[in-house]
């Protein structure tokens, strides 16, 4: 069976190369049949990759340990869903997943657009073929999932903390996001190569970008939730390079989503959009490079592997390609109109973009800093958490404010007078909230109270927009369904605000206390009194579970168990924290058992109180709803696109 997998990958590689070469020639020489043939090759490469994926998936489910990959990442005790999730658990499998998603997305995007924008699509095929060639080459020649061995009796197993529904969903979702950014990139490159640099490529890829961006964002929240619940250090984001690797392309894609609106309406920022989409794509490939190469120290990093160099070469080559393309077509990217006023919606979109890209680049600098210092000074220096926290506040808080102001400013220009008039009510709400919060004790953290106040401001502006709109159209449903992109966007803004409130609450406020408790001893933290009722130990087929039993009184009453598990196969320990959500006070009581002594019943606990942390997860749901509204298909728009962009046949 492994031979079939290998063969399928070789076929996929061959087809990708053909799509690249024949597609480029067909597009360049305006040869329809050759271009169609290349396009079919792209479709077939998806089929071949699907076959290879099916081979790996079946090997995983069948526990076929003659596959080295299967033996490395699963064992007989794994249930089918977790055995399947090992597909993307290792380097080779995750590369295969990347290629599968790339060819799948590529096939769908080119198929849907096969009658529209023929000249542009003719160039999209070779670009996608080029990307596919790289990944297929890696899978065939450098990092194959189909290496075989004499089958051992049992495999190495999957680490217990990864046997978790979140970890099953998190990587594929991220990949659907990362790889999804290749589509707008390919269409942008296609626009530049074909010389058709008007807005049509943006209109054609609008939904793709939104879908990829949504998956990437939601996937990150899934990862954060898993870290909070499973890993158990009390946080959800550590500014780890691998976490940043997903955040950076997401920030670039957010900027891109906003600036294309300007290009569609005003014909401005054409060069900027090309740069942004290339940046988002390069960052997503760079992210894979950072994760897989072991070049930076990370709690996530896999072993140092050989693919690092290849990925770096690919990033360098594709960046050079993008830069050359943009510079070559610069004359075609002249703006149609000019920015008229610093106080206009175009300008606020520009500020928003600048802040997002600034944040993205500062994170990139922080991630690359160890590598840069190593090259320049011969000594590796790492940048810590305070750097990232500072810039998140420096750029994030103004961004939050802009989210509220932007929708209320008119296009082209607004007078200060008009702006003040529109903002009067939200500003009043904000001031009242700020004062109330200060009285409630939120003044203990300046960034925290600022974040809260800005959030109140944005929520007030969103409510204002909805109220005004409903009053004008008569029904909220009508309003939203007739303007899905705009109001879907507002719902997404609301989600970001909830996210901001949740992050501010759980990081700027609350408590973090460590205590040693003997049997019967109590500790009081922020309104909760915890009493040590002893340490228990029990053995299950999978692990030895050690728990400290603590009785809780005060703001929440009950008993909690916190501790760790020592698993048997693979023999690894895992933290098992206790999290109790106090919905009335909107906070989480989070207890980690640092050290447990079953014989003496002594326990070292770390008690954290995390206010408003659950808003972060709620924000994820609201985010999906908002995206869904914005993505909701519009029959009229579709008809118009088709009749407009498809050439008629005689």
């Amino acid at each position, binding site marked *: *069976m492994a031979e*079939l997998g290998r*063969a*399928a990958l070789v*076929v996929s590689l061959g*087809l990708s190369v*053909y799509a690249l070469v024949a597609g480029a020639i067909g*597009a360049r020489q*305006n*040869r*329809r*049949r*050759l*271009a*169609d*043939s290349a396009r*079919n*090759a792209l*479709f*077939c490469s998806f*089929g*071949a990759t699907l*076959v290879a994926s099916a081979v790996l998936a079946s090997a995983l489910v069948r526990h076929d340990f003659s596959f080295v990959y299967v033996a490395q990442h699963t064992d007989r005790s794994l249930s089918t869903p977790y055995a399947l999730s090992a597909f993307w658990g290792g380097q080779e499998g995750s590369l295969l997943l990347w290629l599968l998603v790339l060819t799948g997305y590529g096939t769908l995007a080119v198929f849907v657009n096969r*009658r529209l924008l*023929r*000249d542009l699509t*003719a160039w999209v095929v070779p670009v996608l073929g080029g990307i596919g060639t790289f990944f297929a080459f890696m899978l065939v020649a450098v990092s194959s999932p189909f290496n075989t061995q004499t089958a051992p009796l049992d495999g190495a197993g999957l680490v217990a903390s990864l046997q978790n529904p979140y970890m099953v969903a998190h990587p594929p979702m991220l990949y659907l996001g990362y790889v999804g950014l290749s589509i707008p990139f390919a269409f942008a490159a296609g626009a530049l190569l074909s010389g058709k640099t*008007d*807005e049509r490529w943006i209109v054609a890829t609008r939904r793709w970008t939104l879908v990829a961006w949504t998956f990437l964002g939601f996937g990150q929240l899934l990862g954060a939730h898993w870290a909070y619940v499973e890993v158990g250090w009390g946080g959800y984001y550590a500014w780890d390079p691998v976490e940043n690797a997903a955040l950076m392309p997401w920030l670039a894609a957010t900027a891109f989503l906003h600036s294309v609106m300007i290009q*569609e*309406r005003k014909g401005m920022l054409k060069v900027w959009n090309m740069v942004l989409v290339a940046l988002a794509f390069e960052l997503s490939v760079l992210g894979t490079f950072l994760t897989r190469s072991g070049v930076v120290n990370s709690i996530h990093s896999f072993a140092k592997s050989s693919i690092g160099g290849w990925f770096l070469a690919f990033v360098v080559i594709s960046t050079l390609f993008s830069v050359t393309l943009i510079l070559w077509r610069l004359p075609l990217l002249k703006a149609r109109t000019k920015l008229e006023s610093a106080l206009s919606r175009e300008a606020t979109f520009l500020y928003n973009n600048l802040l997002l890209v600034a944040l993205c680049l500062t994170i990139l600098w922080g991630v690359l800093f160890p590598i840069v210092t190593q090259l320049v000074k011969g000594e590796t220096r790492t940048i810590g958490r305070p750097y990232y926290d500072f810039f998140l506040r420096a750029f994030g808080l103004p961004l939050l404010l802009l989210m509220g102001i932007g929708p*209320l400013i*008119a*296009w*082209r220009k*607004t*007078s200060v007078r*008009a702006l003040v*008039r*529109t903002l009067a009510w939200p500003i009043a709400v904000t001031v009242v909230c700020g004062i109330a919060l200060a009285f409630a004790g939120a003044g203990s953290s300046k960034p925290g109270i600022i974040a809260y106040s800005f959030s109140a401001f944005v929520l007030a502006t969103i409510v204002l*927009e909805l109220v*005004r*709109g409903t*009053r*004008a159209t008569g029904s909220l449903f009508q309003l939203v369904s*007739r*303007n899905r*992109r*705009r109001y879907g966007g507002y719902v997404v803004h609301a989600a970001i605000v909830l996210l901001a409130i949740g992050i501010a609450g759980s990081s700027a406020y609350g408590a973090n206390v460590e205590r040693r408790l003997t049997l019967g001893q109590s500790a009081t933290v922020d309104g909760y009194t915890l009493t040590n009722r002893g340490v228990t130990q029990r053995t299950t087929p999978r692990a030895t579970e050690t728990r400290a039993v603590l009785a809780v009184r005060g703001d929440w009453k009950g008993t909690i168990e916190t501790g760790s598990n020592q698993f048997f196969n693979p023999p690894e320990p895992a933290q098992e924290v206790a999290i109790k959500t106090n919905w009335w006070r909107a906070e989480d009581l989070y207890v980690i058992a640092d050290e447990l002594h079953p014989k003496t019943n002594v326990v070292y606990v770390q008690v954290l109180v995390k206010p408003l942390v659950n808003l972060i997860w709620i924000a994820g749901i609201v985010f999906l709803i908002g995206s869904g509204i914005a993505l909701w298909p519009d029959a*009229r*728009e579709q*008809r*118009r696109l088709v*009749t*407009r962009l*498809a*050439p*008629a*046949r*005689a």
Partner: protein
Amino acid sequence: MTAIALIVGAALAVGAVVLVALPFLRDPAPVDDRLDAPGAAEERRLALVEERDRALAALKELEFDHRTGKIADDDYGELVGPLRQEAARTLRALDEERRAGPSAHEPKVRQVAVPAVEGEAVADEELVGDGETDVADRQVVDEPPIGPLEEGRDVQRRGVAEAK
């Protein structure tokens, strides 16, 4: 290698070859092997249509923002004129292009069907319905910024369209 694997592998290889060769097999001696890209004339019309849609969309958005109170009456008065003129200009340009007709275009093997290119003059966002703006679609409107409509502000707010 199992029998299934062999069959699947063979089917994959054969299928790939067939699909890749299909465009050549289907059409060995084509009349026209060029990509179906729009010709210069079609491009021109497309560009005009897109310009018209953009102008109408901007106008509709302005109306909506005015109606919801985001833009004050005086600002509206200042902004609506140029937008209306722009919309009128694009409608005119499109009309002229249409009237010029196929005779003005280079002969092509594939003729462009006019209605297909036109499509619907629908704004990107249905902020305000077609009948609710002061500019009726597909009509040439050319009026000074301050006109009789401004006097009937209350009439405007109730969403009564006035076709000229």
